[in-house]
């Protein structure tokens, strides 16, 4: 079952990197790429840009199952 709180994710690396220039994100050191599986939750395009999505992760989601890609 998905949790009530969603997490913003972007499917465009260049766009994600550009957002690091904004004041709220300047503190971040970089971006990471995640490979999500169907059991990790649901993803829906939200917001004003096509590249922006909200990920509602499932309670069963395990960080250890996440395939993290270095970017």
């Amino acid at each position, binding site marked *: 079952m998905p949790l009530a709180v969603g997490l913003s994710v972007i499917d465009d690396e260049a766009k994600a990197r*550009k957002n690091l*220039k904004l*004041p*709220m994100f300047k503190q971040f050191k970089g971006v990471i790429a995640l490979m999500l599986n169907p059991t990790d939750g649901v993803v829906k*395009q939200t917001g004003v840009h*096509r590249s922006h999505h909200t990920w509602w992760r499932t309670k069963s989601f395990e960080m250890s199952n996440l395939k993290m890609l270095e970017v």
Partner: protein
Amino acid sequence: MRPLTLMQTLEYYDVPQIIVAVDAMGTRYLCTLFKQDEENGFEYIGVQISEPRLMAFVGGQLDLREAYLHPEVENAVYLVTARKEVLAATKLIQQQDITEKMLPEAGYFFDASDLVDDENPPLDTYQLEVPVHDRITFSTLVSRMGWRAFSLRKTAVF
């Protein structure tokens, strides 16, 4: 305190990051979020901006940082807050009081081509007179924004 009305969200990540707001006089403010907490709500740095300059930003021709460092007129930068669903320009910020934490880094150019398409958006229709030497600039802006332009004279074919 000057109440503002939200016109458009230009960048969204968890919450609105860049917005355009307008005051009762019709003056537009380009606002970028720099602080957010439960007690004070959202704090944006907002700059009064003319329609052509706003279009230059939306068209990807104006660096967001430049909008705040070099506003079109003096006394144009404000602290804009969103608290308890009230959006307002609350305090004038003198140019020398703008801090680095308020500012975006150089090189943030807006990309309108990534905006979500609205299948049936309400349309405004304008009749424009564009100098011939601005034809390429105008057609580029029209293309980037996904607008439609119809020429009324043979000298302006797009």
